[in-house]
């Protein structure tokens, strides 16, 4: 008998698993700081009309390629300068955050939902369901992601919904694989067998017994993937396959500035920094989440 059973119910272990995990997460300063950065971006995106200094579509040819405020010719009311049409870059970055975060969140949400359903079905039901789903996953994984998305966009044409569809098309594979693997392990545990012995349906077992126990790794993976999706969206917009002008999008902004990169570096650089900052913050925060929530990283 292993010497592990020293814990009596009276012990000071009333803290729930979730609260202990949260405390671990908050204790990780870098990750917590990154989470704050992400939250600031989300706040800016939601309240863009209130916080942005200008109208994102307001053009002013007199301010064409106006440099940032601290450079000669700059103005403090146009902090990060203006683009080729004289639009305020800061304003467009704030509005661009809306597109990036909205698409990132929507794609990850839809993809994770599909992935959870497919992964649970494949891992729990096994048999031909698993065969079919796993083959589809393998085939999709065989295509390079960006080229796949470009092909789809070329077929469907640009547009917000089409971008989301094009990205979800392949993105669900990632959570699906995670869920399937975790389900394969969890379904063999005795509490799942116990539920079957009690007469529980497959649906109950998948959704109530298995899912809650495998959710943490899935959430962690999904947050990490959100950073990836944001980059992909920016890439598509950069190639002109994304959200169409005049809507502000970081990828398109970087692309627009290419022509003037030598005389007006700020047009491409600031949206690039925005992408970098958000993606980095999401990555660090989700790593912290993983460390705190995934029990395999404890000890």
């Amino acid at each position, binding site marked *: *008998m*292993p010497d592990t059973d*020293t*814990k*009596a119910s*009276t012990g*000071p272990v009333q803290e729930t698993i979730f609260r202990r995990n949260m405390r671990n997460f908050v204790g990780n300063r870098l990750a917590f700081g990154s989470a704050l950065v992400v939250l600031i971006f989300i706040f800016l995106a939601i309240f863009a009309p209130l916080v942005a200094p200008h109208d994102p579509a307001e053009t002013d040819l007199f301010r064409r390629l106006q440099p940032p405020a601290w450079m000669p010719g700059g103005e403090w009311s146009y902090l990060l300068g203006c683009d080729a049409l004289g639009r305020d870059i800061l304003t467009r970055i704030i509005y661009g955050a809306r597109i990036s975060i909205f698409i990132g969140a929507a794609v990850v949400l839809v993809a994770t939902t599909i992935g959870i359903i497919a992964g649970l079905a494949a891992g729990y039901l096994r048999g031909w369901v698993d065969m079919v789903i796993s083959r589809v996953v393998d085939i999709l994984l065989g295509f390079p992601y960006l080229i796949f998305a470009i092909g789809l966009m070329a077929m469907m044409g640009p547009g917000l919904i089409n971008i989301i569809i094009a990205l979800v098309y392949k993105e669900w594979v990632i959570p699906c694989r995670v869920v399937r693997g975790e389900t394969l392990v969890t379904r063999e545990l005795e509490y799942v067998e116990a539920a079957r012995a009690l007469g529980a349906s497959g649906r109950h077992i998948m959704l109530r017994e298995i899912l809650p126990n495998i959710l943490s790794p899935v959430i962690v993976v999904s947050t990490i993937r959100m950073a990836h999706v944001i980059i992909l969206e920016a890439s598509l917009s950069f190639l002109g396959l994304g959200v169409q002008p005049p809507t502000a999008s970081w990828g398109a902004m970087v692309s627009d500035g290419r022509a003037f990169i030598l005389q007006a570096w700020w047009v491409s650089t600031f949206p690039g920094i925005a992408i970098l900052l958000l993606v980095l913050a999401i990555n660090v925060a989700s790593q912290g989440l993983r460390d705190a929530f995934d029990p395999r990283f404890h000890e």
Partner: protein
Amino acid sequence: MSAPTDKTLLQVEGLRTVFETRDGTVCAVDGVDVIVERGECLGVVGESGSGKSVTFNSVMGLVRSPGRIEAGRIMFEGRDLRALNQTEMRAVRGRDIAMTMQDAMTALNPALTVGEQIAEMLEAHDKGLPSGRNARRRAIRAHSVKMLGLVGIASPETRLGQYPHEFSGGMRQRIMIAIALASMPKLLIADEPTTALDVTIQAQVLELITDTRAKLGMSVVLITHDLGVVAEHCDRVMVMYAGQVVEQGRTADVIMRPKHPYTKGLLGSLPRLSLRGQRIEPIEGQVPELIDLPAQCRFYSRCRERGPECLKNIEMRDAGNGQTARCVRVQKELAT
């Protein structure tokens, strides 16, 4: 406990080992005394959390942070093991005292063959191996074959080249014993050597330990939760509860005439064929948490014989015949 004599191999006095946890300091071993004589087999019985494994991990110097030995002397052949440095302790471990773990699968290195693991042990604790490279290798191999044969593994020459996963659970336990015995230790500490094994295999492994003890004249400490195993294989027994020794004495005495209510309860709660139809009387409740224990008998809350006189620290009391127990009700009986 009697005074040490020249027959004494290991003597532990007032050992106190604690673990720092977020909830407080857990006193896993609290004032434990142990004596192991040369050539004898001492059984150590206790349930999870009784401190039986921690006591002997402390002896082996295997307690790691967040645990530490807070007090006590561990005398082995007149040397205080706690005063030794890392290198000296490593030399004692394996050469003088060997230990086998409960879980043979995780205790053996999966990446090395059984032969390599025995050889490693022999290399580390060189006992008159020849110095020439080839002669040395041959000597090690011959000795390894002998050890595997000793623990009853058929065709040891071929088995030496195999990896731990190619053996069954009982075989792995025997291999671990072979590795432990390779350097002819004076003391073998076997921590639950048979808990993971089936009864027929368990019987084989225990007989192996008892036989080799007789052959090599070493001492054995058998840590177990099974009183039946102790009854059949040990000369003396030590019963532990909540970090303390609550009773010790000759095996036959302790089992036939237990003095401490916990020992009585343990014996009474063994299901047996002969008790069919009768109610067994389990010990109610469970082991207390080892944090901030009050100054009282640790078995108080579960004891059937408790009284107000138990609400203080209880010392070991002599019950005669070398049997002692940590209970206020114990009185010395005249040897009969």
